[in-house]
């Protein structure tokens, strides 16, 4: 089965719904969109399982750009790493498409919605499968575009439109770094082909390698919403909730993590960059988790939670625990998508209300949604045997072993502390949303089947997904990736027993703290700390007022003072001077012959005098 089809199906769905969706019955639109991704999932399953595919499978397509010495051949690359990813993208993607059929049933713009969503899946698959960094970058930018289009899906609302624009612009700032890194890589290694980059990585001088990887990492901080470029993701919650689940939790935002894994031959050789990646990851994990504590919007809690969890993945990438990072990426895709779909189900039932102060008491009417949310929450908090426990625990274990008592130990501690905060905030969110007393007068109704069975499937994955990397299950996924990354497992230096017990203990402690602090939906005033957290550690005013405000002011000054007064002023000044000079010279033209004769005489005398005295 040609691998290209995996991208072609969603592309076809995009065109079909985009061009003809308006003529199809509303329900058909969703079915077409879901089927397109469903087919992709089947192809992905088929492609991954074929035994001869143990080796990387390269599907060359065509020569995209050739100018001078610079050649980019576009093609697809299926190996262990991209196999994991295409299953997540098409699998979770399919479930969320199905969920959307019910969620968007009332929206007249459903064809536009499904066409964007299909385009997103196609772009994400291109990002994952591209065998050249430049092809990956095409996917990278296209998923960003889809994110922009879907955040601003309800564009009549100014907040949604602004959020979309913010996402695009912040990502562009990261992409500027990505572009520079890619150019530096192309100039030093002479290729952007991912296979060849691996071969030549060893021959790149260390300073150049550090610069390349740091620049590429700037791109990753934009796409994966890490410090300092995280600000767009909370705002991105303006988009439809299934979009938040698919794009802003499960798939697109993990692209930065994936990119580092994809280019591991470069990153694993750049020690300084690895430290930076790990530090940024750990810092972001803790930072975002604390902000999640004070959010009232349920989706924003989940958004900060996503930023925080992505931080764990970067921590893993930085401490050379890439298999653990990819494992956490996978389980996170399951449980965070589940949490978002549950939140969407709440919104669906509550006619769009998402402020937790106006929720409460939903456990009884939305029993299924509540259980789904709780399963997701337990997985997020890291309670065994839910999937999130295994992957987070593995990251922390590897960070601890890697630290070996050194400075990385601080990052490990940040990770453990984050784990505690995570359990608190998700407990708070669960209580505020589902526990009595209710703060509303709506009679909520449970979601239709098209919405609940994708949630059920994700719930199963959130419970059982840990088997992919659990010690007792033989760690099928982690083992495979271990080989892929060329890493030797820390099997011998097994983690001490207290370490294995620490993370679940911390999670349970956090849940207990959260339960006692917020039981009965108590609203706690954190005072100054609360303000500090609500202002995102004062980063929000810094970005909004200081940076964005001043940038705009510079533009205004350039456009008015510099452009109109100085530059154009000089141009018009020259013109005016010419006119004035003409006007004054005109006075010489008196029209009297005697004046001209006198002038001729004076000139003649001067000339003769000059000749004589020369």
């Amino acid at each position, binding site marked *: 089965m040609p691998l290209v089809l995996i991208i072609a199906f969603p592309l076809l769905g995009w065109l079909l719904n985009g061009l003809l969706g308006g003529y199809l019955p509303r329900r058909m639109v969703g079915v077409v969109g879901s089927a397109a991704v469903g087919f992709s999932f089947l192809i992905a399953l088929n492609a991954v399982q074929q035994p001869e595919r143990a080796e990387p499978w390269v599907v060359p397509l065509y020569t995209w*750009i050739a100018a001078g010495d610079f050649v980019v051949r576009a093609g697809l690359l299926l190996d262990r790493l991209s196999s994991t990813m295409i299953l997540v993208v098409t699998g979770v993607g399919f479930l969320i498409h199905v969920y959307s059929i019910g969620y968007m049933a009332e929206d007249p713009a459903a064809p536009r919605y499904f066409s964007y969503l299909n385009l997103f899946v196609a772009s994400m698959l291109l990002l994952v499968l591209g065998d050249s960094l430049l092809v990956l970058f095409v996917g990278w*930018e296209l998923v960003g*575009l889809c994110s922009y289009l879907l955040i601003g899906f309800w564009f009549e609302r100014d907040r949604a*439109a602004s959020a979309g624009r913010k996402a695009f612009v912040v990502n562009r700032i990261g992409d500027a770094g990505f572009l*520079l890194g890619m150019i530096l890589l192309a*100039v030093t290694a002479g290729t952007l082909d991912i296979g060849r980059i691996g071969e030549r990585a060893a021959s790149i001088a260390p300073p150049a390698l550090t610069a390349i990887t740091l620049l590429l990492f700037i791109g990753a901080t934009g796409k994966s919403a890490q410090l300092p470029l995280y600000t767009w993701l909370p705002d991105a919650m303006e988009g439809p909730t299934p979009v938040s689940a698919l794009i802003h939790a499960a798939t697109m935002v993990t692209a930065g993590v994936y990119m580092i894994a994809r280019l591991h031959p470069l990153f694993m050789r750049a020690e300084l960059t690895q430290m930076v990646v790990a530090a940024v990851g750990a810092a972001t994990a803790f930072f975002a988790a604390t902000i999640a504590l004070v959010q009232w919007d349920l989706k924003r809690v989940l958004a900060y939670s996503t930023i925080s969890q992505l931080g764990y993945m970067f921590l893993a990438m930085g401490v050379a625990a890439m298999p653990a990072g990819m494992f956490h990426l996978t389980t996170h895709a399951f449980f965070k998508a589940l949490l978002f779909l549950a939140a969407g189900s709440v919104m669906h039932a509550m006619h769009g209300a998402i402020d937790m102060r106006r929720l409460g008491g939903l456990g009884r009417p939305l029993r299924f949604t509540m259980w789904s949310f709780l399963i997701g929450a337990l997985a997020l908090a890291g309670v065994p045997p839910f999937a999130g426990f295994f992957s987070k625990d593995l990251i922390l274990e590897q960070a601890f072993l890697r630290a070996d008592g050194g400075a990385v130990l601080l990052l490990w501690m940040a990770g453990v502390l984050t784990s505690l905060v995570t359990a608190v905030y998700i407990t708070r969110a669960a209580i505020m949303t589902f526990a009595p007393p209710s703060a509303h007068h709506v009679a909520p109704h449970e979601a239709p089947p098209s919405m609940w069975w994708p949630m059920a499937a994700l719930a199963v994955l959130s419970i059982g997904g840990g088997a992919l990397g659990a010690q007792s299950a033989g760690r099928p996924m982690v083992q495979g990736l271990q080989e892929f990354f060329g890493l030797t497992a820390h099997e011998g230096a097994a983690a001490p027993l207290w370490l294995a017990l620490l993370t679940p203990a911390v999670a349970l402690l956090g849940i207990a703290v959260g339960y006692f602090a917020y039981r009965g939906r108590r609203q706690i005033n954190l005072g100054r700390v609360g303000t500090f957290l609500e202002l995102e550690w004062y980063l929000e005013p810094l970005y909004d007022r200081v940076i964005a405000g001043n940038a*705009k002011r510079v533009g205004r000054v350039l456009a008015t003072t510099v452009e109109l007064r100085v*530059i154009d002023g000089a141009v018009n000044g020259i013109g005016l001077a010419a006119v004035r000079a003409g006007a004054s010279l005109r006075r010489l033209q008196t029209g009297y012959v005697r004046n001209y004769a006198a002038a001729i005489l004076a000139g003649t005398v001067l000339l003769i005098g000059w000749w004589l005295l020369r």
Partner: protein
Amino acid sequence: MTFPYLSALLFLPLCGAVVVALLGRRRSDAIRWTGLAASLAALGVAAVVFLRFASGTAGMQFEERAVWVPAAGISYHVGVDGISLPLVLLTAVIMPLALLSSWTSVTERVKEFTVSMLVLQTALLGTFLSLDLVLFYVFWDAVLVPMYFIIGLWGGSRRAYAAFKFILYTMAGSALMLVAIISLYLQSGPAGARSFDLLALRDVVVPMPLQAWLFGAFALAFAIKVPVWPLHTWLPDAHTEAPTAGSVVLAAVLLKMGTYGFLRFLLPLFPEATRQFAPLFAILAVIGILYGGAVSWAQSDMKRLVAMSSVSHLGFVTLGAFALTVEALQGSLLQMVNHGISTGGLFLLVGVLYDRTHSRLMADYGGVAALMPRFAVVATIIMLSSMALPGTNGFVGEFLILLGAFRVAPIYVVFAVGGVILSAVYLLWMYQRVMHGPVVVAARPRVVEITSRELLIFVPLILLIFGIGLYPAPLLQRSEASVRALLERVEARR
């Protein structure tokens, strides 16, 4: 003797102009159709030239030569190579679209308008095809006349000021170029053996101080036309006041006369001076990229915003031209075409809105996407092309320029990527203000979905955006040999 393709291409629009001139003034429709037919015929010939063009050949193709003024060594000498070919095709593509865009918006003096547009096309094609400096200069200045009328007669409220500024500013530049052309002629050999022929002049070694002066004279004319910062202030006025078709042709084609001049004349005629002054141009280009982007952001008039964005985009083209590497030059050439498509497209978009509401101010719009969903899709695609999203044409050109320039001086590129960010900032800002948000009620009844004629204008642009973005080889392959030969020439005299 082979068929004179280039002469046919060159004079088809002019013949069309003559036919239009003979038509009765009242027969507006006949005039419009004749104009369109003439420009489409030219497009047909240009397409044949493009398809029959031999890739991998550096030299001139389809050459035609006829002695014009033997005593002064002036001849009618035209030809096309990999450097002029993309621009010839661009001109041929843009003209019919510009004429279509003015189908209903120009209702007064249709005849004069159509004649001006067709004469303009011949002059533009002549500029790109001439291989004789006098012939080139004739076409170069001939462009100004119809453009002056197009701005001055069919333009907006400040059209007289804008047209006057446009013609004075550009004439000031080209006057010195004429002096330089004559001086170059005098350097070309002993009396009696002198020539204005470009191909011959390329082999004349002009001694250094003089070469720098001549370089400066040519460079000034071209830099004003591009325009290179800070010689750009004629541009926002001219673009803003011109009617839609005028803005489209100005942005898409006229500005390329300058950047084409860099490649066709400065580099091969004055290689030493080029190498010497290249850093200066690169710095001005980078300033233009950032400055144009920042100033665009602060505009409230859509046309002015698009016009200022050209300063930024042409900065990339200039940077590519003076980076003097194969990738950068290829990118620069490709980006000339891309800018024509994307910025031409942006002006057409503004024109569609202006036809409905007669306002260019963003504040007068809001929520247009809800009223014109098809238009919103078209606008999105063209905006993405302008901000060089991968997959569209703009990305290939911009990336090649940045890559090629990086090989020479990374520092320029570090700053130039700021322009990549800014283009997203100002374009999305405009898009949101006009297309998104609540619908502005005042404009509502007049804001109706784009017509099939309007859609027809955008279809070729959209096809080109994705065609070039996904498969730029047809253009890159045709220009590669000429670009390599050009660079060898610049490097040879070291």
